């Protein structure tokens, strides 16, 4: 088809440009994965610096200013640039394969999500060259207001999160449409793999959670740059408003981080126990219930702000109720192990460990659901222990389980099981050494976000212990990186279904062809490949007809650069914002008129 004058032709699908212009969900998944893992390493280095400073009382490795920047950026990096996009890497790569589709509903939008994420990530990270944000990841006003933090750090925070939010919103809409509309014949909602269910759930969460954050960020941006007074108490504003807006996003965000990992574990456990997931409907509905209840608990982050007794009672009750669906999930995973024939692959070890470490985070969560107890826990190291058992013991363990599990599907190669098990044990021991003592430190009265503490407080021993543990985690990551690069030099030997798994992604080649499936599969049961195996149903022969796939496009990265310029302009000169707007408008025009092949 002819190119309209002034628009760009479809690029050729070769070389580096084939990656930059790709709209293939698998390649975008890989881009997400590599980018997010790089940010994970960077966030890990930040964590090691923090732990090094805190190893001994009155440490002198890092000064107060840098320390505040490091814990702020550690959280932002891990949450927004590493764990969320690692979840995105999995659902990008896997969702179409798992539902028997050839791509997502809006392939170019999918590429745009990735490039906007990269832009937001680079903006946020580049803040270290000027002023990094330093008011903590929840960035409370008035500390984050112009009066008390006049440097650019908070503006980087605002612009970075607004940009990243745009990316997540587009991805969420894309995957909602994909999952609802593009399932293979026979793949009813109650046959959907649990991982896909969790992707659908977090897509809804993202669509609903990002707007309040966006509102808060825009208000903060205006307060800081245009002298509005949304959060300024002297002018009739209210700093508590920010806390409500932030946490009504922030709490669902925790589920956005953990639900993909729960989905991964729900896929891995049945495969290596060689039996179906125990109580599939309960696991699905528990996920829905967690997401739903997650909207009615945000104020438990604000129990110490002087909220009345009755609201605290209500939010405490709602929070405690979340223990019920969470408990259901944990018992169903244990039930999946029961009666199995368990293979201890690395992926399985990570999933089994997930059950235990996530349970610890869940239990401590129920503890500070109790407002009187929270009076002691809030803003202490006990909470730091809790969030790391949820996000490291939960999300990260689940993600590594997924990496070992789907690596053959993604690359056609296997990760070494020997190095994998070394990685697992070092990480498991390291994370417990690092985070378990933080419970003790919290109970011993250590507040979070302090760059130094006195000898006389008796916090030295467990801090040193935790620091050693964090280095063990660091070593385990090095083992993983070595494993990764060693494997990438091996030949592609992985068969279609090396683990004898049950879901559709294992019905195609490893790695899958660009069009995913030669013939769109038909689903006859909840565990389709096991059903076909047990009933002697052979895969259909390819018919050889032409399969049209969306060609690559320049517009996603072009539009993303426009979005990034909007933000960079706010941080430097508004002329750049105007330029960004022009780029975006041009991209929309060219995007709309782009030929289909």
């Amino acid at each position, binding site marked *: 088809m002819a190119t309209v004058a002034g628009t760009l032709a479809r690029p050729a699908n070769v070389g580096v440009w084939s990656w930059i212009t790709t709209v293939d969900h698998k390649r975008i998944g890989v881009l997400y994965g590599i980018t997010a893992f790089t940010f994970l390493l960077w966030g890990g280095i930040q964590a090691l610096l923090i732990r090094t400073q805190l190893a001994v009382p009155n440490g002198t490795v890092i000064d107060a200013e840098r320390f505040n920047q490091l814990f702020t950026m550690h959280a932002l990096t891990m949450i927004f640039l590493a764990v969320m996009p690692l979840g995105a890497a999995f659902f990008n790569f896997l969702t179409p394969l798992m539902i028997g589709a050839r791509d997502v509903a809006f392939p170019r939008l999918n590429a745009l999500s990735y490039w906007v994420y990269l832009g937001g990530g680079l903006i946020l990270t580049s803040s270290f060259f000027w002023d990094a944000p330093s008011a903590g990841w929840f960035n409370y006003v008035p500390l984050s207001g112009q009066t*008390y933090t006049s440097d650019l750090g908070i503006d980087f925070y605002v612009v970075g999160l607004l940009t990243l939010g745009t990316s997540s919103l587009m991805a969420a809409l894309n995957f909602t449409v994909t999952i609802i509309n593009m399932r293979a014949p026979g793949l009813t909602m109650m046959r959907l793999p649990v991982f896909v269910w969790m992707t659908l759930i977090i897509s809804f969460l993202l669509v609903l959670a990002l707007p309040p954050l966006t509102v808060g960020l825009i208000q903060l941006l205006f307060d800081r740059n245009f002298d509005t007074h949304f959060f300024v108490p002297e002018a009739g504003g209210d700093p508590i408003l920010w806390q409500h807006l932030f946490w009504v996003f922030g709490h669902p965000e925790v589920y956005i981080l953990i639900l993909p990992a729960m989905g991964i574990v729900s896929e891995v456990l049945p495969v290596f126990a060689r039996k179906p997931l125990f109580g599939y409907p309960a696991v699905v509905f528990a996920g829905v219930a967690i997401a739903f209840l997650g909207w009615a608990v945000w104020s438990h982050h604000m129990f110490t702000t*002087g909220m009345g007794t009755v609201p605290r*009672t209500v939010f405490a009750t709602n929070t405690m109720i979340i223990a019920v669906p969470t408990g259901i999930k944990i018992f169903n995973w244990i039930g999946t192990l029961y009666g*199995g024939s368990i293979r201890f692959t690395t992926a399985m070890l990570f999933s089994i460990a997930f059950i235990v470490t996530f349970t610890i985070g869940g239990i401590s969560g129920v503890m500070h659901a109790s407002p009187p107890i929270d009076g*002691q826990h809030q803003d202490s190291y006990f909470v730091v222990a809790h969030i790391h058992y949820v996000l490291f013991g939960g999300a990260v363990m689940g993600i590594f389980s997924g990496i070992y599990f789907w690596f053959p599907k993604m690359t056609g190669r296997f990760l070494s099981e020997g190095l994998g098990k070394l990685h697992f044990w070092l990480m498991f021991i390291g994370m417990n050494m690092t985070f378990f003592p933080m419970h003790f430190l919290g109970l011993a*009265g250590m507040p979070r976000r302090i760059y130094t503490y006195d000898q006389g407080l008796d916090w030295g021993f467990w801090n040193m212990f935790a620091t050693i543990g964090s280095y063990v985690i660091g070593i385990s990551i090095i083992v993983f990186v070595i494993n990764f690069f060693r494997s990438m030099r091996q030949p592609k030997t992985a068969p279609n279904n090396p683990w004898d798994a049950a879901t559709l992604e294992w019905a195609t080649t490893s790695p899958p062809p660009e069009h995913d499936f030669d013939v769109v599969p038909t689903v006859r049961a909840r565990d389709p490949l096991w059903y076909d195996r047990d009933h002697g149903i052979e895969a259909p022969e390819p018919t050889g007809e032409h399969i049209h796939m969306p060609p690559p496009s320049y517009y996603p990265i072009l539009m993303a650069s426009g979005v990034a310029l909007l933000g960079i302009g706010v941080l430097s000169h508004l002329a750049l914002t105007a330029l960004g707007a022009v780029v975006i408008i041009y991209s929309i025009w060219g995007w709309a008129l782009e030929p289909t092949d």
Partner: protein
Amino acid sequence: MRATRLGLTSLRGRRLLPLLALVLLVALLVACDAPQSTTEIAGNNNDKLWEPYRVVLVLAAIVFVLVLVLTLGFSIWFRERPGRPARQIHGNTRLEVIWTLIPVAIVAMIAIPTFDALFKIDKDPPADAMKIEAIGHQWWFEFRYLDDKGETVLTTANELHLPEGKPVTIALRSVDVIHSFWVPAISGKVDMIPGHDNNISFTATKARPEPYLGQCAELCGLSHANMRFRVFVQAPADFDNWMSDQKKDSTSATGDLASEGEQLFAQSACIGCHTVRGTSAQGKVGPDLTHVGSRTTVAAGTLENNAQNLARWIRNSADVKPGSKMPPQGASAGGTLTDDQIAAIAAYLLSLR
């Protein structure tokens, strides 16, 4: 403690051992007498909140051991063995109903003592409770003792003295960013939020010579870590003595060095920010120094109060407390005072007992 016994007796045999070991371990490690520990109980609020806390800890230990034993046990027992295929179980409604009800029961067991404690802690203080105002500043605490009409009768900083057994109610304020008032041994924390009238009420229950340690618990900027305070709980008679001493105005310094310091102080920038009652120094920005010599620490609980540390603080306070709002006074740090002059001022301040 009834819950503890219930928790323990409901388990027998092999499960009892790991549970006991765990509870003991936690108790041992936690009940360590760290000076700022939440496990030491010296106030009615902390006493009250430990009621649900004990229940929660026991339930937590039981749930954790249950999950651990089942996960590990099943993993090992059902490991791959030749001739034993996996049993294709899809679920079990009865079991699933049971393990929905178990968390419901656990939650109820936590909720009931929680709300009991919450309502007791939140109860309005008695009308005769002692009234105090605590004001958060970047990065120190101002304490004002109020009379029945709410007028300030005494202003001090970073060291709060309280009578044992007497209910107090503290109005929590902030002049800049959000801070949080936390003395773990006495009470859970409550935030100090600009524009909000928060309160905390409690009774300190254990007089002792050593102070209870407190610390700001909400990130408040560069020196958040250095925003500490101390609470001295005294027998009522001792407290009354302290109060009447503190209400007195300062008297003229004796001794050459201190007298020289007094003069220097009155001529220097100090008086722009600090008050010393009975002198021309009536500044309101920094801590009231009328009886600074009687305090045990300087720089919001960061340094021991002695001539050397006072001099270090005056010379360049940001060297002790990054970002400190007090401008450096020492000539070496861009101020106007020589080391000798600073030593004299330190001697004067120490004489303000």
